[in-house]
């Protein structure tokens, strides 16, 4: 049985302890212990469309993640391009045709299933989480729910690390947790768009600023978003309409 609350707490505990530079490695290791998978890797895409910081649970997963970028094909690319997960429970099937160079390399490394999840919030695209498994077969319901939660935690951690950096105080990892439920509210996404227009920044930067404002004010992102949408608050310091 999937227990989303517990999984989020465990992942956050992993992230909070240790050096920031290896946070994504720890998150990947956490994914491998929490999910029925044998390897995990995260690649972040840069604004320029290139590849930035990465993390992995082990060197083989890191290598296979790298290889997709070298070859220019693989589930990572497809998940990034289409903006939805790419789930292949059996790489011996049609996947061989889909990724003619990448698939044989994964099989040779001993994995028969691969699952790629975009780290994204609407139009904000941060990177990809890759999960590898030795045994073929689909990710079942609970495992899929847990994988989506790992992707959510990775996404919000990246946003909140930037939010804290922009303010220089407040630690989202020591608080009650990224209020992930706030991300289910339409107002957070609407407010992201409004802040984009107010500050002339990207969607990613706008969400970072919104969450930074919330941390600094000791409020939830959801509360701040409602105020922005209701035009009770502007983040550009301008006059309220």
């Amino acid at each position: 049985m999937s227990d989303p609350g517990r999984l989020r707490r465990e992942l956050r505990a992993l992230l909070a302890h240790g050096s920031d530079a290896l946070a994504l490695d720890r998150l990947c290791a956490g994914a491998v212990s929490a999910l029925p998978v044998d390897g995990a890797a995260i690649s972040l895409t840069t604004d320029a469309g290139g590849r930035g910081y990465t993390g992995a649970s082990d060197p083989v997963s890191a290598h296979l993640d790298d290889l997709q970028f070298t070859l220019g094909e693989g589930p990572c690319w497809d998940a990034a391009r289409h903006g939805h997960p790419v789930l292949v429970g059996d790489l011996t099937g049609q996947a061989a045709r889909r990724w003619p160079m990448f698939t044989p390399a994964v099989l040779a490394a001993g994995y028969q299933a691969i699952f790629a999840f975009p780290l994204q919030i609407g139009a904000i695209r941060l990177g990809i989480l890759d999960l590898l498994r030795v045994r073929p077969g689909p990710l079942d319901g609970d495992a899929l729910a847990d994988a989506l939660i790992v992707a959510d935690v990775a996404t919000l951690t990246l946003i909140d690390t930037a939010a804290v950096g922009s303010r220089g105080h407040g630690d989202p990892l020591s608080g009650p947790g990224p209020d992930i439920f706030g991300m289910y509210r339409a107002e957070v996404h609407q407010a992201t768009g409004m802040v984009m227009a107010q500050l002339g920044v990207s969607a990613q930067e706008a969400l970072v600023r919104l969450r930074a404002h919330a941390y600094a004010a000791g409020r939830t992102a959801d509360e701040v978003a409602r105020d922005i949408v209701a035009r009770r608050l502007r983040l550009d310091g301008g006059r309220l309409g």
Partner: protein
Amino acid sequence: MGQEQKLSEAFVSLADSLVADYDVADLLHRLADHCVTLLDIAAAGLMLADQRGNLQVVAASSETSRLLELFQLQHDQGPCLDCYRGGTAVSVPDVQQAADRWPVFAAETQAAGYHSVHALPMRLRDDVIGTLNLFGTRPGRLPDADARIGQALADVATIAILQERAIRHHEMLAEQLQHALTSRIVIEQAKGVLAERGNLDMAQAFDRLRRHARNTNTRLTDLARGIVDGTVDSTTVVTPQPRHQPPDPPPSPRAPAT
């Protein structure tokens, strides 16, 4: 137009869309509109399971914040959640009678002016992937004929989301569900940009977005993404294009930010 004719036109138009390269967000909004035209109800919305155990709204017949809130509340309680979990239709002819079962939902629904609620499951074989939610302004049962048409529309929504006539396995289902949910978030982000640029409320922002998509023959989600990515100039979307329709009427007093 007679009811029969409206009904056949709605299904013909939906069927036409399904064989072409359609945008799932746009099609689901049209489907919600059809519910209001064809059924004895006042508002409709579609909620999808996000596969983390929650229901998310993906389309509604009206984008007023008041209505969207009634869907969002069902994250925790309400007929949609019960319909989703039980896999069968849940009908509440008089919301007042449901105050014990769903206190917050019942109160907010009545405050918004609705008195009956019906939730129909969106089913794919053994899975329930979401629900179609119908709100009426008067208490009363959903007539049998309406329940059948509503379920047919819910089934069309399921097919539209899956985008494949014969979905082969759970993996494809998961991919398409997440795709539809992400489309909805992109649309919310774009609504925010337009609301700020044009000093519009969220329902007006959505109307501009939808109208511009139609006028320029652009997919709704692609236009929304272009606005958020900055590849589409949002001022052209906020400012109605005179070539395609008459100018806006003089501005009315701004609607309260609902």
